[in-house]
């Protein structure tokens, strides 16, 4: 029993390390690609790692109370928890319990932690930022819900792993119309969950000086950078697993080669999802909060609902 | 030197001036040049004159420029107003006594709403008090320390005040040509 425990712990640590590293790389890619779109050179790819180290190594930090610290810790903890559930090729630990609804909820909970911390800081901009974040969450929930419903009804199961296995045989789920609609809607939702351009009203730098993040300094901001990295990795992984077929490679003899191959395929799919988000983000101006809410309740909801109804038939 | 072309143009301004002078006998008006008219109005009649201008579609008030004449002991307020329809610029000059307690003017906030800010500006820097403008006491540009010194008056000794405020500036007495940073 103990050996399996240590095995799991080691595997978990490896996954965590891999996820954080790739997450930082994704953040680096975002900054480089946006820079290249602006015809600028852009920072080196490992820039986010440097930023995080600089933030963590700050010599003096401030706190506004116990909840201010606990909220940030809770956010990172919840993201790590979410990461463990999403099947990563064949090596994820809690794969058997990776339930669609559970993962969608876990991906929203870090926002609760961040908002708790931001609100307890007592800064008016933090309050305003959290209000906008809440409304974006409210707006995003409807298309997200319909997309998950479409998926669950199409594959008639909630376990992500079974969906991935089904896709291995029957081909990627975006090849079927109902799920293609769901994927489109989910992708627009991802735009808001990444906090990218058209829907990042909650962390608008000019207007409310980074919204909830205004009071986060030093190590709190460092932890949030790590959280953002893991969240990026987890969300893209979840999307590529349920819509782009995930990766379970059994062609090679040794298991290590298999896992590396599947991680590679997954990485490519995750990059694809990320690039879509970056390109949309780089072009669009920022929506105000009620425009964003009205938009989300109009087009993505219609698309996702159509997908759900088609899947239900 | 009213040449033809200029004459033709200034004829229009002259017509505007005569039209206004008809209705405001207390004022004198003359055409400075093309698209620029000037009126001199006694201080107490300023509100009626401005309402008159407003009615003759002089829409925009551009600025209230106070000019300090220490020798005459007066501050001259120039209300600069622009008419979009006539495409002409009107300067209405009034003179008020210079002393702090006597430099008082009625506000024209209700005729031209923008005047509220210009009046506060004039009050901050020149000490002209406009009755009826409720934001007169509201702090505007100057900091607390410079609140009552009305810095842009001619008799304000700027250098001496700066030396008192920023104590380190003893090098001002050196002569300026070999000034070394």
């Amino acid at each position: 029993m103990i050996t399996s425990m240590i095995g799991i712990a080691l595997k978990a640590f490896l996954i965590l390390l891999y996820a954080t590293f790739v997450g930082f790389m994704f953040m680096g890619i975002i900054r480089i690609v946006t820079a290249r779109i602006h015809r600028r050179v852009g920072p080196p790819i490992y820039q986010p790692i440097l930023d995080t180290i600089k933030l963590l190594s700050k010599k003096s930090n401030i706190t506004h109370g116990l909840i201010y610290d606990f909220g940030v810790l809770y956010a990172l903890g919840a993201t790590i928890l979410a990461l463990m559930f999403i099947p990563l090729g064949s090596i994820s630990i809690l794969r058997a319990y990776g339930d669609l609804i559970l993962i969608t909820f876990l991906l929203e909970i870090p926002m609760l932690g961040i908002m708790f911390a931001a609100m307890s800081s007592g800064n008016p901009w933090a309050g305003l930022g959290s209000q906008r974040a809440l409304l974006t969450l409210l707006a995003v929930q409807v298309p997200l819900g319909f997309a998950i419903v479409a998926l669950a009804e199409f594959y008639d199961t909630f376990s992500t792993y079974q969906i991935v296995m089904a896709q291995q045989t029957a081909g990627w789920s975006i090849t079927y119309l109902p799920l293609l609609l769901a994927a489109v809607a989910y992708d627009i939702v991802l735009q808001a969950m990444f906090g990218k351009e058209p829907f990042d009203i909650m962390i608008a730098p000019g207007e409310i000086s980074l919204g909830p993040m205004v009071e986060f300094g030093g190590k709190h901001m460092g932890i949030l950078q790590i959280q953002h990295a893991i969240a990026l990795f987890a969300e893209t992984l979840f999307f590529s697993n349920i819509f782009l077929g995930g990766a379970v490679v059994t062609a090679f003899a040794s298991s290590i080669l298999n896992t590396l191959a599947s991680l590679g395929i997954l990485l490519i799919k995750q990059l694809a999802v990320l690039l879509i988000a970056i390109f949309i983000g780089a072009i669009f101006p920022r929506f105000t909060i009620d425009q964003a809410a009205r938009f989300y309740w109009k087009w993505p909801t219609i698309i996702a609902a159509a997908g759900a109804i088609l899947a239900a038939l | 030197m009213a040449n033809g072309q200029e004459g033709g143009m200034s004829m229009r301004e002259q017509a505007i001036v005569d039209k206004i002078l008809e209705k405001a006998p207390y004022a004198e008006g003359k055409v400075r040049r093309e698209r620029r008219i000037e009126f001199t109005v006694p201080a107490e009649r300023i509100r009626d004159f401005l309402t008159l201008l407003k009615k003759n579609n002089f829409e925009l008030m551009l600025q209230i420029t106070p000019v300090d004449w220490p020798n005459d002991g007066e501050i001259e307020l120039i209300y600069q107003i622009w008419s979009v329809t006539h495409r002409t610029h009107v300067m209405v000059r009034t003179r008020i006594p210079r002393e702090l307690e006597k430099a008082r003017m009625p506000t024209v906030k209700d005729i031209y709403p923008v005047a509220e800010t210009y009046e506060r500006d004039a009050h901050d820097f020149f000490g002209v008090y406009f009755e009826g403008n409720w934001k007169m006491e509201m702090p505007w540009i100057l900091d607390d320390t410079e609140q009552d010194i009305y810095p842009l008056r001619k008799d304000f000794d700027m250098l001496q005040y700066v030396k008192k405020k920023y104590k380190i500036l003893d090098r001002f007495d050196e002569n300026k040509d070999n000034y070394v940073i």
Partner: protein
Amino acid sequence: MINELMIIIFTPLITGVIAWLLDIKGLREGISILGAAVPLAYLIQAHQTLTSQPSIQYSIVISGFKFEFLLYHLSWIFAMIAGVVGFAAVLGMASTTKDSYEWLFALMSLTGVYGIFLADDLISFFIFWEIMTFGSFMMVLKYNRKASLKYFLLSVLGAYSMLLAIGILYAKVGALDFTTIQQTLYQDAMRGVLGTNTLLSRNDMLLIFGLFLIAFGVKAGMFPLHVWAPDAYSETNQSYTAMFSGVLSKAGVYGMLVIYILLGTRLMYQFGRIGAAPKFGYVIAFLGGITIIVGGLLAALQEDIRKLFAYSSISQVGYILVGIGVGSALSIEAAIYHAISHALFKGLFFLIVATIVLRTGKTEFKDMGGLAEKMPITFAMTFVAILSLAGIPPLVGFASKWLLFEAVIHENMPILGGMIFFGSAIGFVYLIRFTYAVWFGQRPTDLDDTKDTPIPLAIAMGILALLNVVFGIAPGLVATELNKIFGKEIIKGTIWELNIGFGRYNGLLITIWLVTGIVIAGIIYFLGAKVRRVPVTDTYQGGNPVTMEYNLTIRRNFFLPLKETLAFWLRISFDRLYQDIGRWVEDLAETLRNYIYNGNVQAYAWYLAIILLILALWGV
């Protein structure tokens, strides 16, 4: 030979009367708490007997009616909800009641609820329904006449429509107790299937179902009939609202289950099915879905702390109704599970509201704030309650919501699935609005000396919070009880795990991994440099210096953009509709009186002549 069912039902009422008569400050609290504890003890003791024999039965004849009482698994679960949350609410009331008559009517409504859950025939069901309504109404009467009148009228309307339905059933079936009605209606359905004409016609069934729906819809706070809930929940002794919204709304839910038990097969045969759900069930589910959305959105826009939780309680009951409406065995079990978790966290929330109102004396959001430092225990309880209601994994809220989602979406109902998802986000939204306005941010100067909760309230909150956590981490405990209702093992899985074939959820595993995640974050946190505590005014406002006179927290009108987006929908309000009907009825009464009893004798003589004419003409 007092049967234990009688003890369970009538001890609260008797102790209530004694407490009301005695009216001695210390003593009456003790008696009333005893009155709430005794039934709970008997119920726990009854759990053993239920494992051996299927049910405990008792019957008594009063004025020509044969009253039967039955305690079996389903009613045991609901009675336990009433017991636990009722006991906690009574404990809470020990510190928030001022005069003794509140004890009488609170315990009377508790008796009513117990009676409803244990009743086995329609007449005793109706009687205890009336007792419950009257008890809870008198609690609201003292605080606000208009709110209590609206509440009483709507619930009496519900009660009378139920009475009409009972009457029709009694006329057709002849008997009143559940077993015979169930049998006759079952045979009736079979007869209908075989083609012969049935005992009850189609519009009879429609009428009965409609009337029962109105009756239970009013009590559960379904969409068009929910207008009484916000006023009634906020205009009464706040710790009583824990029982009011936690337990009494479950009576409405139990009523919906009674519809399934009694008329289920008959309605199924009569109206058929939509997809997997029965058509009549789909009506309940759809109304439940709308209740979720309406309750949630209105909760987010409230300015009063009690109103917010009243609307939130309506929207949570909407979940249960969706679960019941879908009608599959799994979804009904999920609905009951959510009923349990709703009673727990809603009871906890209203106790928290009671503490806040008791300690600060304020109920509006705009004059509260920054209480987290001053009331640490209550804030800890609030944190647990928030995690539970918003549906965050390790707690019971998530377990029941997860079960409900899976059950509803598995019956491939896309619209209902969408509505439920929308509901889960709204729960998130108005909770954070509440925490922000009350617990965080800048504390108004007059709240600086607020003390923490009194002891009895703290114990009550402790009980409910503990249950929230225990049932969250070990959902299997509840699942085994739920499976007993249907007899067969619907929710498989161990004590820590719920396994329903197409989805698995393990409470313990999630808690472990969440703790590890937080530990990892904690390690990174403590590696960094030391932390300096900073006052609220030391905050970045574009470099401007800030003092306590500035209002640094957006407490008033927090969701203004949401109000603008929903401006169109907010114009429709059922509340105004019912008010206009009430006013119209009163004007009609006024004109009627002026015309008929107008006071002159000639008119009266004319009436006599008209009656004579009718008698002669009509050939009597």
